[in-house]
Structures are given as C-alpha cells and as structure tokens.
C-alpha cells in the first residue's frame, strides 16, 4: 500500500495541478510542493518500516494486470530500491522549490514533473519486467517535454537527442526483454515477466534462460539500454546537451535520478538476472579482460578530461557526472562486496552531490544569466555563503574524505583493486583531474579580483539555501557515518551473485 500510494500520489497531484485555475498559478506551486512532500513522508516511513536485516523483498503488492501475457502488477522493495526511492522522494520538494521562479506554463511544467516522479518511483519498485519497462519509458516522455519546452536556446535539439538516444537504448532493451520472456517458460506454455522468478530461473542449470550464449546476448541488449542512461561512453553525448539546455530542477533530476535508473537496471537485471552474461563481460573476453571495468575506467578518465576542457559551468558538471558514474561501473565490474557496496554508495552520493552542483549552477545563472566560467571572477567576496556551499559541494564531488563522495569512490576502488590492479591505478588519474577541474573552476568563478560587472550581485537567498541544506547535511552525515546508507542495502549486495 505504501509503495502504491507513493507511486500514484504524484500522478493524482499532476492532475490536480492541471486543474488549478489559470489566475491562481501560485497555488499550483504550493500544491505541487505539498504533493511532493507526501512521497517524501512515505519514503521516510518506508525507511523506518523496512527491515534491513531481512533478505526478503518487502512491501510486496502483486495483482494480475495483463492476463494474456502473464504480466503482473508486482512491486516491492529491497535495500537498493529503498535507498534510491528515498533519494527520489527527497529531490521532489527540492526540485519544486528550485522551480519557483519559472513563469512559462508553470502548471503544465509542474504536472509533468509530478508525472516524472511517478515514473521514477515506480521504476525503483517494479518487480515485473514489463512494468519495469513501462515505468522506464514513462520517465522519458515528461523529460522530453520538460527539456524541449522549458529548456535553453537549443532545447529542441537537446530534447530530441535525448529522446532518440534513450529510445535507441530502450528498443534494444525491449528486444532483450521479449527474448527473455520468450525463453522464460516455467511450465509449458506459461511464460513470465516476473523478475524474482526470472532471477531464479536464470540460475537453474539446464533452463533456457541459464544458457550462457543466450545470456550474453540478452546482457548486451539490456546493457546498451542502460548504458545510454548511465551514460557509458560512447553513448554519453546526449548528456551534456540535455543538461545544458534543461532548466535547473530538471538537470537535478536528470543527474540525480535518471542516471541512477541506468545503474539500477544494471544491478537489477544484468548483474542479478544474467550472471553468465556478467561473467562473460567481466572475465570472458580473453585479452580484453574485464570489459565492464575498461568501460568504467574510460568513463572516469574521458569524463574528467572532457570536464577539464569545458568553459560552460553546467557542461563541466555534466561531464564530471560521466566521470563519477564511471566509478559505479568500476565497482560493479569488480563483483565483490567492497566494489558493489561502493558502486551503490556512489550512486546515492552522486545523486546527492550532483543535485547540489546543478542547483548551485542554477543559483549563479539566475543572477548572471550566463554560465561562462571565465566570465565570472572574485564572487567569493560578494557571495560568501554561496561560495561556502559551492566549496562544500565541489569538495564532496572531488572525493574529499569526511564527505560522502569519498566513501563510495574509495570502496569502489578498493573492490576493484583486488580484481584488476592496472585498470584501477589508471582510474586514479580521474581523481587528480577531478580535483583539477573543480579547483580551477573555483578559482575562476570565486577567487581573484571581483569582476566589476558583479559588483551588485545578490547573495544566495533563503529559498535557495533551503533547497541545498538537506543535500549538504546528507553529504556530511553520509561522509562521517556511511553506515546509515550501507545498512540499508547491505543485504541487496550480499544477495547478488558476487565472486
């Protein structure tokens, strides 16, 4: 019940927001804000209700949906889902808060945003492959319009690029999904989309699903689908464009949640359901060794070097996301406790930190109306609080110990190092370059002489601080005591086919 209401309350909210009379658009904002508080409240409830010591999937709701194909409405959560649901629910009110200044079609905007929230929460709960896919696609549509209508000057290009890329991925994913379905006969004639059932079938030797060749192909299909979302090189070029054009709050959701949908899918489907495929891509490729790890390292190095070359503040943060998601891939590729725990922690931490970063870029963009890093200078003197929070976010992102970014990265690396030394050592280049681009940005924007253009620039206001504080506190708390998060999903990690 908890999950169902969490999924559909935003949807109801989306309709209510649309019904607000045109002359009361302020009310729409408050309604949307209150609506997003409900899933947050429920998520906190879920956090306390969820028993992390149990390996069982909890809060299960299961009914028949499309009988002809044995498609069921099956939702439930494990620790990994709870973690990401909490993150999604937390970002709901924050993003509404960050959208306060939007004037154009605010009602439609908010209702699309609420629809997006339904898709995201639903995705993290879905336990039926078909339902999983439906929610996956459900996020696509609102996102397309949110970028395409409320975005920057090149919004059309960015939106369509985002749409086509994701669609390309999801077509492959769909094919893989159908192939899995066709091979999933439990009894003769009875096939299933049920993820837990599929997971156990895939590990039953002799079953069609357990066939390594089949798994390799299915793995590839799902993998590309998720790789576009993560994004993994070379499927990443939609990301910088989408981020640059999207409005602040949408960038936040994009970086914090949508990218996690990719890695979540990798864990749920590729890792758990297709172990033989995972085997192949982590050590079955002869001299290529661990292909997945190579992709992770490429992401890390490529993403950070590209970030170093950017002069657009938002693009820089976007490329840094690519680099940081590389650590998730690296940790997953290690397939051991430290690596996978690190990867999941990194998912959560990147969600929190990148959300902060995009919110912060939005703050300065709202004042200066541009994002050229070289066009600022000396803002530290005029905006000390803003500078302080930005420094915190940058430091967290570059992996300063004591803040959350470090723990995920360090665990990923520790796990990875025990499996593939050379690649892990290579990936540490990203740590140095990561520090370089953030510090260089810090210098160009905040240090040095004040750019006279910004003599009168306004300090960050209370509303903006309020959107940042929960994330900043989380960054510090999880950095000091990562147990809060690890305890949640420890059993999900142990339950995976580790090596």
């Amino acid at each position, binding site marked *: 019940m908890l999950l169902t209401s969490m999924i559909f309350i935003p949807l109801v909210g989306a309709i209510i927001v649309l019904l607000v009379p045109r002359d009361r658009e302020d009310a729409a904002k408050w309604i949307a804000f209150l609506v997003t508080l409900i899933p947050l409240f429920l998520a906190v409830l879920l956090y306390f209700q969820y028993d992390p010591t149990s390996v069982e999937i909890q809060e299960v709701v299961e009914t028949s949906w499309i009988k002809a194909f044995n498609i069921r409405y099956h939702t439930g959560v494990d620790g990994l889902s709870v973690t990401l649901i909490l993150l999604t629910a937390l970002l709901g009110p924050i993003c509404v808060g960050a959208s306060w200044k939007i004037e154009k079609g605010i009602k439609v905007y908010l209702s699309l945003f609420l629809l997006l929230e339904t898709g995201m929460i639903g995705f993290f709960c879905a336990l039926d492959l078909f339902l999983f896919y439906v929610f996956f696609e459900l996020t696509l549509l609102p996102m397309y*319009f949110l970028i395409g209508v409320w975005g920057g000057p090149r919004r059309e290009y960015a939106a*369509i690029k985002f749409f086509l890329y994701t669609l390309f991925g999801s077509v492959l994913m769909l094919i893989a999904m159908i192939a899995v379905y066709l091979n999933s006969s439990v009894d003769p004639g009875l096939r299933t989309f049920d993820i837990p059932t599929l997971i156990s079938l895939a590990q039953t030797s002799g079953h069609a699903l357990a066939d390594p060749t089949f798994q390799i192909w299915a793995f590839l299909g799902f993998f590309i689908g998720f790789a576009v979302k993560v994004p993994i090189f070379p499927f990443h070029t939609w990301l910088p464009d989408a981020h640059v054009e999207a409005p602040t709050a949408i960038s936040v959701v994009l970086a914090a949640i949508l990218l996690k949908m990719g890695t979540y899918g990798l864990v749920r489907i590729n890792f758990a359901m297709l172990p033989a495929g995972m085997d192949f891509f982590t050590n079955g490729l002869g001299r290529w060794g661990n292909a997945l790890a190579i992709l992770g390292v490429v992401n890390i190095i490529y993403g950070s*070097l590209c970030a*170093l070359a950017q002069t657009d503040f938002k693009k820089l943060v976007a490329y840094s996301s690519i680099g940081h998601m590389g650590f998730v891939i690296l940790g997953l590729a290690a397939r051991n406790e430290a690596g996978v725990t690190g990867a999941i922690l990194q998912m959560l931490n990147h969600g929190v930190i990148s959300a902060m970063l995009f919110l912060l870029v939005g703050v300065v963009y709202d004042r200066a109306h541009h994002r050229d890093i070289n066009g600022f200078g000396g803002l530290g003197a005029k905006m000390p609080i803003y500078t302080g929070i930005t420094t915190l976010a940058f430091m967290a992102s570059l992996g300063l110990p004591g803040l959350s970014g470090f723990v995920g990265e360090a*665990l990923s690396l*520790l796990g990875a190092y*025990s499996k593939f030394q050379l690649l892990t050592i290579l990936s540490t280049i990203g740590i140095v370059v990561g520090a370089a681009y953030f510090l260089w940005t810090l210098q160009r924007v905040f240090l*040095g002489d004040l750019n006279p253009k910004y003599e009168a620039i306004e300090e960050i206001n209370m509303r903006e601080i309020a959107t940042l504080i929960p994330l900043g506190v989380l960054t510090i708390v999880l950095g000091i005591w990562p147990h809060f998060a690890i305890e949640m999903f420890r059993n999900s990690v142990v339950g995976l086919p580790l090596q």
Partner: protein
Amino acid sequence: MIVTFIFIILICPLASFTFFAISSLMGRKSSRQDLISTFAMLIAFACAFLLFMQVLGNPSIYKVAGASTHTTDWIQIDNVSLPMGFLFDSVTSIMLLVVTIVSSLVHIFSIGYMHGDPRYPRFFAYLSLFSFSMLFLIVADNLLGIYIGWELVGLCSYLLIGFWFEKDSAANACKKAFLTTRVGDVGMFIGMMMLFTKFHTFTLFGENGIFELVNNLESSDLTWLSIAGILIFCGAIGKSAQFPLHTWLPDAMEGPTPVSALIHAATMVAAGVYLAARMFPILTDVSSLFIAYVGGITAIFAATIAIVRWDIKRVLAYSTVSQLGYMMLAIGAGSYVAGLFHLTTHAFFKALLFLGSGSVIHALHVHHNDHDDGHHDDEHSDQPVERDGIPPEQDMRNMGGLRHKMPVTFWTMLIATLSISGVPFFFSGFWSKDEVLGATLERAMESGSAHYYILFFMALVAAGVTALYMFRLIFLTFTGQPRDQGMYEHAHESPKSMIIPLIILAVLSFPIVNKWSVKKYIEQPGQVHNHLAPEHANQFVLYAAAGSADHHDSTSHTAHKGHSPAHNIAMGLSIFVAGLGILLSALFYHWKTFSAETIANKFRGVHRILWNKYFIDEFYDGIIVRATIIGAKIFGGIDKYLVDGLVNLVAIIVNYIVAFLVGLFDNKVVDFLVNSVAGVTWKFGGRVRRVQTGVIQNYLFVILTGVILLIIIFRLLV
C-alpha cells in the same frame, strides 16, 4: 579516561568551526569567533597535557606502540570491515602536545596579527577546522583514518593559503598546493589499496593489524612490500613538500603568516614525517633507502635555493622543506626516534621563526588592515615598490637594523636561528640534528653502504648551508643600517598578544623541554625486514641504540650500548659546518668582507639556477600542466566533433533513409502516423509545435515515429 580526553580534544575545535558554519548560514557574523576558537584550542591543549602526564606516569605502557582504543566499525559489510579507532601511545601524546601548543600560540598570535581583517572570524574558524583535522590524523589508529585526516588538513591548507583570495597569487597558490599534494595522495591511496588487498585491513597495530600480519609474509614478498611502502611514502612526499613535489610549499607563503607557522612549518607538513614514522615497521631496506634519498636530496636542494631568496618568508619556506628532508632522512636511515625528535624541535623553532617574521611583516606593513586595495603609493610617495613580485614588507632588501626597533622579536628569532643552525649544546636543534646526522653515519658505517655515506655528506653540507642562510636572514633583517628609512621609521615592536607566543616558543627551543619528553618516551618499533631477512636480525637493536643515545640522561641508555663513535664524529663535523656557515654568513652580510653580489655575478649561471629554483616550476607549468590542459582540450574536441559528430551523422543518414522510405507512402499515411502516434505532442499547443518545425526536426520526428512503429510491431508479435 584516555578516550574521553581524546574526544574532548577533537570535539573542541570541531565545535568551534561548526558554530561558525551554522551562524554564517543563518546570516549572522560570529563576532567573537577569535575567543571561541582560542578557548577551544586551550581546552584541547589542557587535555593533551593531561594525556601527556599519563604517559609520564606509565612510560612502560605507552612506550609500546599499539594501544588501540575505542574501535568501532565504520564500514562493515560481510567480509569487508573498516574499523575506526583511536591509537594512543607515546608518539601520539607527544604529537598531540606539539600540535595543541603551537596551535594555541598561533591562535593567540593571530588575535593581534589578523586584527581588523574583514574576514577575521572566518580565519579563526578555519584554524579550528585545521586543528581538528590535524588532531584526528594523529589519533587515528588505521591508515584510512590517517588518510581522512590527511585530506582534511589539505583542505584547510587550501582554504587558508587562499584566505586572501582576491590576490591572484594566493588563488594560484592554494590551487597548486591542493593539486600537488593530491598527486602524492593518489600514490598513497594506491599503496593503501595494495596493503588492503593483501591484509584485508587498514588497522596498523594489534593482533590483526598490518604490522602483525606483515610478519607472515614470505621473503619473496619483499619487493612487493617495498613498492607498497614507497607508494605510501608518496603521500608524504606531497604533504611534506619533498622533492620533486615540493614546489607548492614556497608558494603557500601567500597565506597569512600565522598559517605559515602553524600549517606550513610546524604541523601539517610534518604529518608526512609522522606517516613515514608510523609506517616504519613495514619499511624494507629498499623503501628505507628511497626515503633516505628523497629526504637527503630535499635537504640539500632546498637549502641551496634558500640562500638567494629575498623574501623573508620564502627563506623560511625553503628552510622548512630542507628540514623536513632531514626528518625523512632520519627515518630512511632507520632512526625513527631521531626523525620524530627533529620533528618536535623543528615544530617549535620553525613556528617561532615564522611568527617572528610575521611580527616583522606586521611592523613594516603600512596598512595591514586592507589587503584589498593593493599598494599605497598615494600616501607614502617614498613607499618602496614591489621587486620581483615580493611584497615590500617581506623583502629583506628593505630591512636592516630592526633589532633596535623590535628587540623581543630579534632576540627570540635569534634563539630559533641558533637552534636551527645547530649551534651546540644550548639549543634543541643541535641535539635533534645531531641525532639525524649520527643515525645516518651510523647506518653507513654498519651497512658499509656507499649510499648512506653519500647521504651523510649531503646532510652535512645542508647543515652548513642552513647556518649560512639563516644567519643571512638575521643579519639582513636585524643588523646593520636600515636600507629603507621610511619603513624603518614606521616599524614598531608588535603588541603583547604577538610577543608572548614568541617568548613561549623561544623557551621551547631550549633543549631541556624536548629532550626530556621526546627522547625518553619514544621507543623504536622493529622493522619488517628484520623478521624476513635473518642476516639483518641484529640491526633493530643497533638502530634503537643509535636512536636513544642520550648524553644527559644516563638512565635511558644504560640498557643499550654506549654512545657510538659515529655519533661523536657526526657531532664534531656538524659543529664544524655550522660554525663555517655562520662565519661565511657574517663575512658576507655582517662585516661585508666579501660582497655577495660580486660572487653572484661571478657565478651568474649558478645564481640564475638557484634564483629560478632549478626551473622546476617552469617544468611543471610549461610541460605537465600545459600537456594536461592540451590533452583535455583534445579530449573535449574529440567528444564534441568526433563522437558527437558521428552521432549526428548517424542521425542524418537514418533520417534520409527513413525519409526515402516514408516518401514511398501516401501523404495520408504519413499524416495518419504523425497525428496518431505523436498526437500527444501536438496537443501541447503552439509552443510545443515549434519544436517540430525546421526540416531536420521534422525528419527526426519521422524517425521517432518509425521507432515507435517498430515497438508496436514487436508488441504485436509477442
């Protein structure tokens, strides 16, 4: 009880910083932050002192390293466990005492020095955060904890170097400091990963600690262990500004002078030495030699650069680099005690030198309060101009004769100078430097290795050079005739809050305090190669004897063998070179028997190399930094034009194919498709419709339609 005290020591400075952070977030100015921070630090000092008394009471307990207390699981997954705990032994207690003393004194000094700065409260908050991080680093019982503290002090160093961030030089310096040390830290982290993969723990002492498990290694693992040791030491190379990652420390002098004293002289930069000392048990012969060479090269290399500097703070900065090299050399030569002993004595006399130079700068600075508005030519037409990028009040070419104006500063600095130069018997620096030299020579004589003889020689020359440049500083600053009358007139002795810390530190530069504490209560742990390689089995005892040889305290070394001939030789030579250095310095800069300029002109090439710091900065900026940025631009270009270009190309090609296929159909079919499948889009009204205008977009949408069609077909198939 120990745990409670450690908690108090950590919480006091942290609370002080937190108070500042929260009040700033709420938009309030924490106007009494100076008192809050200072008070917090004094409480921490009191606790550290009580802890130290604990050690004094039970030397037999705390001498033995490895009393881990209060361990808790920081990260715990089934087979991976990363516990955090406190480590308390004599080394910890001495380090705590050194840090809290220097930090408290720097806090007090800053009340006067930073007075009137627009960001006065923030300065103290940063000092608190730094103190917390440094203290955490010291009490952590495992490598990960040390690493956390290690990076946090790096952050504080960054924030404090860039405290006056309006100056471009400061903004550059803080970035450089952070990045350079990070290069070393990455090496350290790789070393940590190596150890963790082998031993599944970061904990140092105890039954399942690294130092215990390392004994189970085979002799064939020695190479591996050497590499791990060297990699971990990379962290120390960065943090302690050892060659070749030393370039950030002189630039770090852009920070306020109290910061230079606390972070960049006494404590943070010594953390590298502390780390090397903590990792002492796993150092093999190879990694020891590596450390010794890094230390030895740094010691002499930095000392030579210091001779030609005009900026009073830079002289001290290079001096710090050089002295840190000494400490590393000691540890590399196998004398843990000598390294830590020199760390302690150096912390006090170098903090004193920096605070003294701060006092001089404070006296000469016309408008200390406003750093924003650059130079003040309008008021003082005779105000000296900046030469070679050195602020006039730090330029020793503008000083001279200041001892008449600032007697306390002069006398206290003179004591510190005598100490660092190794003037015998009455000054602590003599004893600790002698330990280092003695240990190196002893190692050389025992192993018969030419390496350690070379290192001894390098250290000896560096000792002479140290005396030379330090007395040059004293002569140029305090004696002779004032070279800038205007500044001289203006100069004045500093206020009490600044002078008192100087006097206290001067007292601490006398040997009684240090010798009484450090030498007696630190016991050298064994090293791994002793267990692994039987032929070295007796070395441990010998090093221990070298380390704890003590002239005045006969009880401490009765158990060991007596004072070795190596030490006597080393002591004799070190007195000789120190005397020579001072004499040369006096001939050049006091009696002016010889002219330094003539010499500089004669050996113009050498002078040029020294003046340009061996061109290492040029190499880094011109080659490494530039190559990285060019590399990044290439990657950025590839991404923008090649990868994304390919994507767009694919889109265009598919676009044409689909357009061609679609063209085969009747217009009505197309209309139907577009309107029905993409109809959702259309309903969003005119604004949205514009998304699909333009030829390319139209085609793209056709592709989209095709794909959706494909999905429908698939669905029907299933």
